[in-house]
């Protein structure tokens, strides 16, 4: 049993503790009649726009906007298609983006730009809605990381689970601005599936959940991306040695190991790093108590983030 499995198992059992406690109380004090419904009047905060967008170089800008709702509302997401969304590049107004409806049933769609996004630019959007007011956000789209060296030292082998994969990455940090990086490993696989007529066909898919480990970036949550800022890099070259476990299976027809090195905007880094240690949604239970995700959306929820990634592919099969 690997350590990840082990701790998940323990975590599961610790959560059972809660029900144990209840049973204990119930039995000890003959309390079968001591549960009752509780009428709580809560969730009365203001409804706001929810903006979700990530900026990638060379791509159009896609902005999805929906409406927040009462915490006990289990209805579908209410996408907003009647906003006026203006986009600015380096402080200069570019255009008002049209809404493209992609799914008439759910109302899913997005506001998209007619131009491609460029690196080293700062983008701002202003979304105006008749009922929900104005929400806005700004993000810098950084250049790709300056990769100096990459070497795969050892393949991870599913036949030998203790044999982890190893790779080395060397980056040249730029002293001119604050950089935020993440490193990730994943597999692109050609996977056998059975189609509706019973024939076996092959489709591409990804195995994402591959945590990487390096002493410089503690990864206690076994997260599949390792985030780090350039604090202490001082514009110098920086080398990392990563280990990662095997997650692939030999039944796949093709296996491509992909190493991703990304330079992210500050908001991308902040948005993701705060989500790594998230616990279960417990009620007022000490360390499990939730806190809110911070984002760069003014008068709204969600995130408006950016990253530029470099990918290295290593065919395994």
């Amino acid at each position: 049993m690997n350590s990840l499995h082990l701790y998940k198992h323990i975590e599961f059992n610790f959560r059972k503790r809660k029900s144990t406690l209840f049973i204990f109380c119930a039995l000890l004090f003959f309390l079968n009649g001591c549960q009752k419904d509780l009428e709580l009047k809560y969730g009365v905060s203001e409804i706001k726009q929810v903006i979700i967008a990530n900026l990638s170089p060379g791509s159009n800008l896609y902005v999805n906007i929906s409406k927040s709702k009462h915490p006990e509302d289990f209805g579908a997401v209410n996408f907003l298609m009647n906003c006026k969304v203006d986009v600015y590049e380096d402080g200069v107004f570019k255009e008002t983006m049209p809404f493209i409806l992609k799914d008439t049933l759910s109302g899913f769609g997005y506001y998209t730009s007619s131009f491609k996004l460029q690196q080293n630019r700062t983008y701002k959007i202003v979304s105006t809605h008749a009922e929900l007011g104005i929400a806005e956000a700004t993000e810098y789209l950084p250049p790709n990381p300056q990769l100096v060296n990459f070497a795969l030292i050892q393949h991870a082998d599913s036949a030998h689970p203790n044999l982890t994969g190893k790779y080395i990455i060397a980056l040249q940090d730029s002293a001119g601005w604050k950089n935020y990086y993440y490193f990730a490993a994943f597999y692109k696989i050609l996977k056998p599936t059975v189609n509706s007529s019973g024939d076996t066909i092959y489709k591409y898919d990804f195995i994402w959940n591959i945590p990487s480990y390096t002493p410089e970036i503690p990864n206690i949550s076994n997260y599949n991306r390792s985030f780090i800022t350039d604090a202490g890099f001082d514009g110098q070259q920086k080398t990392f040695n990563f280990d990662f476990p095997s997650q692939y299976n030999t039944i796949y027809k093709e296996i491509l190991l992909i190493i991703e090195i990304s330079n992210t905007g500050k908001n991308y880094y902040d948005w993701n790093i705060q989500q790594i240690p998230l616990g279960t949604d417990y009620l007022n239970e000490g360390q499990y108590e939730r806190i809110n995700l911070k984002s760069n959306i003014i008068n709204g929820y969600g995130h408006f983030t950016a990253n530029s990634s470099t990918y290295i592919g290593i065919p395994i099969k």
Partner: protein
Amino acid sequence: MRYFKLNKKLTFPFCILVIHLIPLKSCFFIIIVILTFVSGSSISVAQNQYLLKGKITEQKTKEPIPFANIYDSVFNIHSTSDSNGYFELQLKEAVYNFEISSVGYQPLYKEVRLLKNMEVQIQLKQDIQLDEITVTTEKISKTAEVNTSGMTTLTSISVERLPAFFGEKDILKAVLLTSGVQSGQEGARGIFVRGGSPDQNLVLFHNAPVYNVAHIYGFLSVFTMESLNKLDIYKSYIPVQYGGRLSSVLNVEPNFGNTQHWKGDFSLGAITSKFHIEGPLKKDRTSMNFSIRDCHAGLFTAPISRRQFKDETKNGTLKYFFYDINGAIQHKINEKNTLAWSFYAGSDFYTFGQSQDYPRVKNFYREVNKKKLTWMNMTNSIEWKTQLKKINITNFYNYSFYKLDSRQKSETVYRDYVKYTTNFNNIQYNTASKISENGWQTIIDQPISKIHHLNYGAKLSQRTFTVNTVNIIFKDSLGNITGRDTFINPKINAVDFYVYADYLFSWKEKLEIKTGGQLFLYHAKGKTFFYPQPRAEIIYHPITGMSIRTSVMRTVQPMHLLTNNTGDIQNDVWVPATAKIEPETAWQYSGGIQYDHPKGYTASIDAYYKSMHHLSEYKYGTNFILDKIAWDDQLLNSGTGRAYGVEFFFAKTKGQFTAWFKYNLGWSTRNYPELNDGKTFYYKYDRRHDVSIVLQYKLKKHFDFSVAWTYGTGWRMTTPSSKYASDNTLYNYDEANEPLSGNQSMITYWNARNNYVLPSYHHLDIGMNYVKKGKRVTHQLNISVYNVYNNLNVFSVFRQSDVDGDGNRYRKYKQLSLFPVLPSFGYTISFEK
């Protein structure tokens, strides 16, 4: 005389003004200067007077009665005996009528014709009826008593007549009924004093700290009534001899036994049974007290739980036991030297086992879970009291130990009848936390004159912390260990040492000024901290029976209790302050007015403001037990807190009908830059209103009745305020690099931590005692009803999914309550030789 009168006019208002207006550092210095000035003048006035000296002792045992009141209403004289029962008064030639009283004793009225220097011996009788009925329930009514300094005293007598819980009377239950103290919620362990947390209260049993005072989710304390003499609660001005906690000190004085005759009792309650014996090993010189209590709740929970599990087609059982053992011996070596020893040990055992089988045609699955929790307290104290001329010296050595041990086992078996395979999984995880403390203290009490009094000394404490040792074991189906994973936090040694001095200035029974402080040194993990802790208190008596008081103090706490305060004790871990997690500190300012009417009425109003710093909290998302990270890297230490409020107290202490009433109006907030977006939020147990009413009535000599009603604003929880679509709403990108519609997963948003106040907590309890006194044997029957009108108070809140009539899914909140209406009885048989 002119000089003196000038002082009288100027000094009193000035002293009070000083406390309020002048910055604290300056204040301390100015008070010293003023004291020197005033005391000099007073000494000159005291010429040509006579000295009245005396000692107050208990009539039967001849033991000195410390801090007894000496009072003359005509001459407005108000004084107290020292810790050895001695007192001295410089008085003019006159005839005085003194009332000498102390908690738990009958007041004595004594006429003294003071025509020369005199020495008197005063003996007080224990506070019992004069009709030769000496069992405890026949004692006349007593309530919580508040002295002029705001210190509350509870004796075993004042608790005797309160309603019992499961047939058991408990002093900490009585503490919760006193001013400024509150419980957190139903099932919360510990007590909450003036907006502080439970770990901020130093609970001492014979000067030894007790780290966990709760049994059964806080419903009973570790102190049996037979093991203690009285309990003092300090929350306004904590005497400088106590240190190491922010909010309060609860000092439990043990019962060292009767020095004249043997007595004992045996009692049987709904879930506990007790045996107690005390008496003289050598009359007038050596006495002992021993008591043992056993909780046999497990005898009921085991069969009931088995039946309940069986109804759910499971196998399982649940047991809970605890015990307490107390012993104390006191030996009077001679008139000036006394040795005392006390011992306490108690432990709780909670075991839970559950298994369920899932037999199917093609396979079989079994799941087994077992859990055993054990927690243990131990204290051991040796006290040596000696007197050198007028100086009283008390030396303490104390040892305290607390341990929490958790063992959990999880086993799964999966048999596949088609493939003929068996998959076996067995994992055990054991965690343990411990704290042990050795302490030495010397207390020197030096009365200099009628006006000046010094109290000084030093205390050294050494603690060893074991913080969450985790041991995980894997076994195969034959029971062989196949793997092991251990995480041991290194033991931490922490030492604190403080010297202290307290100067008491008493002037003409009108004014008392206490000023002093501690110099507190603390060392752990290579880091040393130093905290000067000034304290000052002024009490002014403008008229007979009235006292106006104001105090300021700084306190420091070099350890933290990590807890969620609710029933699950497993999260409770004591940790020391370190360089990363600094000691907590607090300033408290308080003031009040109290009036004690000679006919037995007391009324007081107190206000307080407390600011706390370096409070600790878990970092968000940490799992203290499982994450292999040093524990002090998982905590926040940036917390600040504020608590302020007003406390009202009224008591009728004499007569057949006695009563007390308290009302606390308070606010308590916390702020952590890392939590709640850095905004200040209310403390979970911020209780705006807290009320207790206790009524006691004694009917003839056999019966007494009591009624207690408790009300408090509900505790706070965090409820979500809205939710919004997560990143997963845009799932991946298509081949044209356009977003695809993903799932509908949502992110929850909370607009504030602890933003919701749960329903109020209240219950009414009634009790009745019937006592039948024989020649040597006394029978006592107690009948009590807890929560008479069956109000279901909130112990815990959880969410449950449900589907409405239209098939729509919804979630509702449900509450779990522990105690519906609960009648109980207790029977005690006492013997006396």
